[in-house]
C-alpha cells in the first residue's frame, strides 16, 4: 500500500506528461489520464439509488455488471443542465473498481507534455485542490487535469460512510 502511494506521489511529481482524454463541463475543458479510462458510452437509463448524495446519479448495467455513475457537475457543484445528444458516460477504473462519470461532451485525446503542465494554484489552506493533478496549457487553452481517483474516492467514500452512519438519525 505504502509502495503504491509513493509510486503515485512519484508519478505526480515527475510523470504527469502523457495522453489525456479531455471533456467539457460547460465551457471548461478537463482532462483524465487515458490509462484510467476504460470506455466511453452514450447515455443509458440510470437507476437512481435511494438515500445517496446527489452527485451519485445511480447505477447502470454495463454488460452484466452493475456500476455506479457519478454526476461530475453535481460533484463540482455546478448547475445541472439538460441532457443532450453529446452527454455521455466515461467509464473509468479507480483502483480496479469501475465507475461511470457523466460529462457534457467528450472532446479529444491530447498529448500534453510535462513542460506544459503546471501545478494547481494554491487558493489557501481552506480550498482542497488535491484532486487536481495539474493545469495543462496548450495552444492558449487551459485544461484542468483531474486525478480521478481522488475526485471519486476520497470525498465520496467519506460522504458515503458518513451517510451510512448518519442516515438512521437524520
Amino acid at each position, binding site marked *: 500500500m505504502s509502495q503504491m502511494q509513493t509510486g503515485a506521489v512519484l508519478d505526480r511529481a515527475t510523470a504527469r506528461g502523457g495522453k489525456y482524454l479531455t471533456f467539457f463541463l460547460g465551457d471548461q475543458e478537463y482532462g483524465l489520464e487515458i490509462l484510467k479510462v476504460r470506455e466511453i458510452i452514450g447515455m*443509458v*437509463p440510470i*437507476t*437512481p*439509488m*435511494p*438515500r*445517496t448524495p446527489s452527485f*451519485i446519479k*445511480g*447505477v*447502470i*448495467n454495463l*454488460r*452484466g*455488471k*452493475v*456500476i*455506479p455513475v457519478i454526476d461530475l457537475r453535481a460533484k463540482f457543484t455546478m448547475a445541472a443542465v439538460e441532457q443532450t445528444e453529446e452527454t455521455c458516460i466515461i467509464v473509468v477504473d*479507480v483502483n480496479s*473498481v*469501475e*465507475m461511470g462519470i457523466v460529462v457534457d461532451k467528450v472532446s479529444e485525446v491530447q498529448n500534453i507534455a510535462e513542460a506544459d503542465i503546471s501545478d494547481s494554484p494554491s487558493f489557501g489552506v481552506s480550498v482542497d485542490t488535491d484532486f487536481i493533478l495539474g493545469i495543462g496549457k496548450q495552444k492558449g487553452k487551459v485544461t484542468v487535469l483531474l486525478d480521478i481517483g481522488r475526485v*471519486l*474516492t476520497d470525498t*465520496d*467514500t467519506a460522504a*458515503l*460512510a458518513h451517510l*451510512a452512519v448518519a*442516515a*438512521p*438519525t*437524520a
Partner: protein
Amino acid sequence: MNWLNCTSGEMRSLLEEISSRCQSTERADLQGLVALADLFASLEQALAGRPETTPLASYAKAAGQATQRIVLAEVPDAAAALTTLQQISQWLAATLNQADAPTPPEAEVLANLKRDSGLADLGVGGNTAATGSQSASPVTLDDIAIAISTLMPGDTAGLVQIKDRLAEWLAQCARPQSVSEMGFSALQVLVKIMAVEPGESTDKLMEMLGTLVDGIQEAADNPTAASTGCPSDPASPTASAGAAASSDQSPLATNNLQSAEATSRPAQTPASQTVQQLADSLQAADPALLADFVTECLDHIENAEASLLKLETDPTNAEAVNAVFRAFHTIKGTSAFLGFGQLQQLAHLAETMLDRARSGKIQLTGGYSDLALEATDMLRTLVQSVQGSLGGEKPVDPPTLPHLLQVLADPEAAGVSAEASIADAGLRLGDILVAEGKADRVAVEVAAADQGAGPLGEALVKAKAASAKDVAGAIRLQSRLAGGESESQSVKVRIDRLDALINMVGELVIAQSMVSQDQMVIKATGTRLVRNVNHAGKITRELQDLSMSLRMVPLKSTFQKMARLVRDLAGKNGKSVRFVPEGEDTEIDRNMVEVINDPLVHMVRNALDHGLESPERRREAGKDPCGTVTLRAYHSSGKVVIELCDDGHGLNRDKIIAKAVAKGLIESAAGLTDAEIFDLIFKPGFSTADKVTEVSGRGVGMDVVKRGVEALRGKIDLASEFGRGSTFTMRLPLTLAIIDGMVIRVGEQRYIIPTAAIHTSFRPSDDNLSVAVGRGEMVMLHDQLMPLFRVYQAFGITNAETDPTKGLLLVVDDEGRKCALLVDDLLGQQQVVVKSLAGGIGEIKGTAGGAIMGDGRVGLIIDVPGFVSLARDAVTAAERSVRQPCLTA
C-alpha cells in the same frame, strides 16, 4: 495413387518384419510372440482398410489368433506353427506384389495352419473368432476382473476359464497396441500361474494379474492415456508396467519385491524427515508444478476417502480397495519425484498396508479402516502444509506423524485389527430382489444358505429363485447404490472466467430479447428475418440453460463429508450406525455447497447425539441395534430438498414442553400442535440433551441451523414420532445467484422484493387505516394490526401514489413480524440474477443488490429487514420533527 503405394509399402514392411520374426522367434520368447501377434493385428487392420485387400485380412486375423494360441501354449508344435505363419506371411507378401503372384496356395497353407496351430476353425470368413468359451454374449473386461477377484487359490478350472475369456476379449476387436500388449502380458501371467507347482504361492502373480487387468480397464476406458503411456502421467502407471511385466524380471515384480523389503525397513527408519527438507524441496521445485501437485493430491485423497467409506458398507469391494491403493500409490510416486520424503514415506506405508488388503490378507474394516482414514487425514495435512508453504507459511511438522508411521509400519503390533468392524450394512442383493418383488424371501434365504463359495447372484440363478436378468439388474442397482457409477470426465476452469461467461450469456439473452422485440423485427414481413431471429432466440435460451447448469455441482462431496462425520461420531459415541446417502447426484449451485455444510453438520451431530440410542437401548426397544441415518436429496418444485432421517427415539413431546416451560418460552402446552411444539427446539438456548457431550448439548444447535437455512432463503421443517425417529427437511433454493422476485413500481422506479418475504398484498379501505401516536401508521388486516411503511417516503421518490387506498399494500415478513409496505403497483413475478452493487458505492441500506431487468436496466432489490428498519427510523424522525414545532409553539 501415392497413398496406395504408401500403405502397400507399409504392409510390405510389416510382412517383412513378420517373416523375420517368425524365423527368429522361439517358443519361449513370449515377448517376441506378443509383438508378432500385434504385428498381425496391425497387418489385419491395414489390409481391411483397403477394399482390394480386404479378403486377405481374414488370413492375417487367423494368423494372429494362431500366434495367440502359441502364446497360450495351446499349440502342440510351436515351431511348426511358426514356420506356417512365416509361410502365410510370405504368401501374403507375394499376393500383394501382384506382379508375380503365385498360385494362391490357399488351401494348402490353411490346412497347415489348422494342423499346426490346432485351431478348430480358422474362420476365413473372418468373423467366427470364437475360442473355447461357452458364453454366447461378448465378454467384457468387467467379467474378467470379477472372475479374477473371486478366484479361489488352487482353482485351476477357474483359471482356464479366465484365460479363455481374456483371449476371447482380446480377439473381439482391434484396440490400441498398449492395451492388447497388456492383455497378452496378463495372458502370460495366467499361463505362469497355471505352470506353478501346486502348493507354491501364486499370490504375487495373482496380484500382478490384478494390476494388469486394472491397467487394461483403465487404458480401455481412457485410450489416449494408454496409447501415450506417458511415464510422468501418474494416472496410468500400470500402462507402462503392463508392457514391462511381460519379461520375467519385470519392474513391476521387482517393485513388489522392493516394497516387500521396504515393509520391514521403515520400522528402523523413524520419521526423520525434517521441516528443513520440505523447505528445500519447495525451493527446488517449480511453484506451478507444486500447485498442480497439491490439487492432484487433494483430489486423490478425496477419492481415497470416498472409496474407504464405500468399503465401510461393502468390505469386499475389490474395486474400492484398488481405488484407495491407486490413490496412495500415485501420491507416493509424485511426492517421491518432487522430493517430499515425509509424504512419500507415509504414502508408502499406507500403500503397503493396502496392498495386504488387496491381496486379501487383511480386510479394510474396523481398525484397519480407521488407520487408513487416519493416514488419509495425515496426507491431507501434509499436502496442505505444502500448499501453505507455497503461500509463504512456515511448514509444520505434525506431531502425530511419527507415531502414525510406526503404527502403519506394523499395524498388528500396535494392536490394530479388523475386529471393531461395524455390522455389515449396505443393501444386500437378496433384499433388493425381494423388495422389487422379483424373488421370494424364502427362496432367497434357501439359495443363500446353499450358495457356498460362489456369489449369491449365481446361486440365485442356479436355484431358479430369480431370473438372470433380474439378478443382473439388482446387481447393477446395488452397485449404483454403493456409488459405483463411473464419474463423468471434467475439466477445471477458473471461477472468474466461469462467472464472466455466465454474465455474458445473461447479457446475450437480454440483447437477443431486445432484437426480437424490436419493432422492425416484429413488423418484418420477410419470413427469413423472423426465422433467423427465432433461431437465434432458441440457441440463446439453450445457452442460458447450459450456462446456469455450469454453476451446478452434485452434492456428492457434501454427502461424503457427512458419511465421514457419521462414522467418526458413531465411533466416539459407541453407537452403531448405518449411513444411507440417497440422491448424491442432486445438483446445487456451487456457492450453496459450501454454505449448507454448517447446518448439515449440526443436524448430523444432533441426529447422532440426541437422535439415535445406544445399541443396548435399541435392543431393549426391539429395534435393530444398528441405527440408520438417511441423508436424502432431491429436487422438488425448483428447490433442493435435503432430508435427514434417523430411526432413533424421536422427539419427546413432554420433555420439550417441560423444558420450554422451565425456560419460559411457553406457559403451557395447551392448544399447541405437535408441529408447534417441535418448532420450539429451533429457539435459541434450547437443548433437550440431558448432558453436555463433546459434540452437542450446549444449547447452541438447532437455532443456528434454522438461522443458517433462513439466511439461504430456505426453510426447515421437522417431523418426528416418539420412539420411531425424526426427519429434518431443509428446502433450499437451487442457487443464491438467482432469486424469485416480485417486481413493484413506486413512482417511476421499479424495485424487486424477494417473493419469499411477501405474504400477501391487498388494497386497504379507509377503515383499515389508523395512526398510532408515536408509532406511525398502522393498518388492520384480518384483525391483525401491523405497521405501514411508505416506500416512496423511505426512498425519497417523487410522483408516487401517496394514498394507500389507491395504491397497494404488500404484507412482508420482517424477522417474524408482519408489516405492510405501500407501493404503487405490482408488475409481476420474475426470476432475477442478483448482482452486487460493485464497489465504489458500498452498502446502501435497504437494498440487497441490483438485478438486470428484461429491458437491460438495473432494478434494485429491496432487502426487507434492512428496509423496514430504515423506514422505521424515517417514521421516528418524522414524528420527532412533527412534535418538535408543537413543543416550541
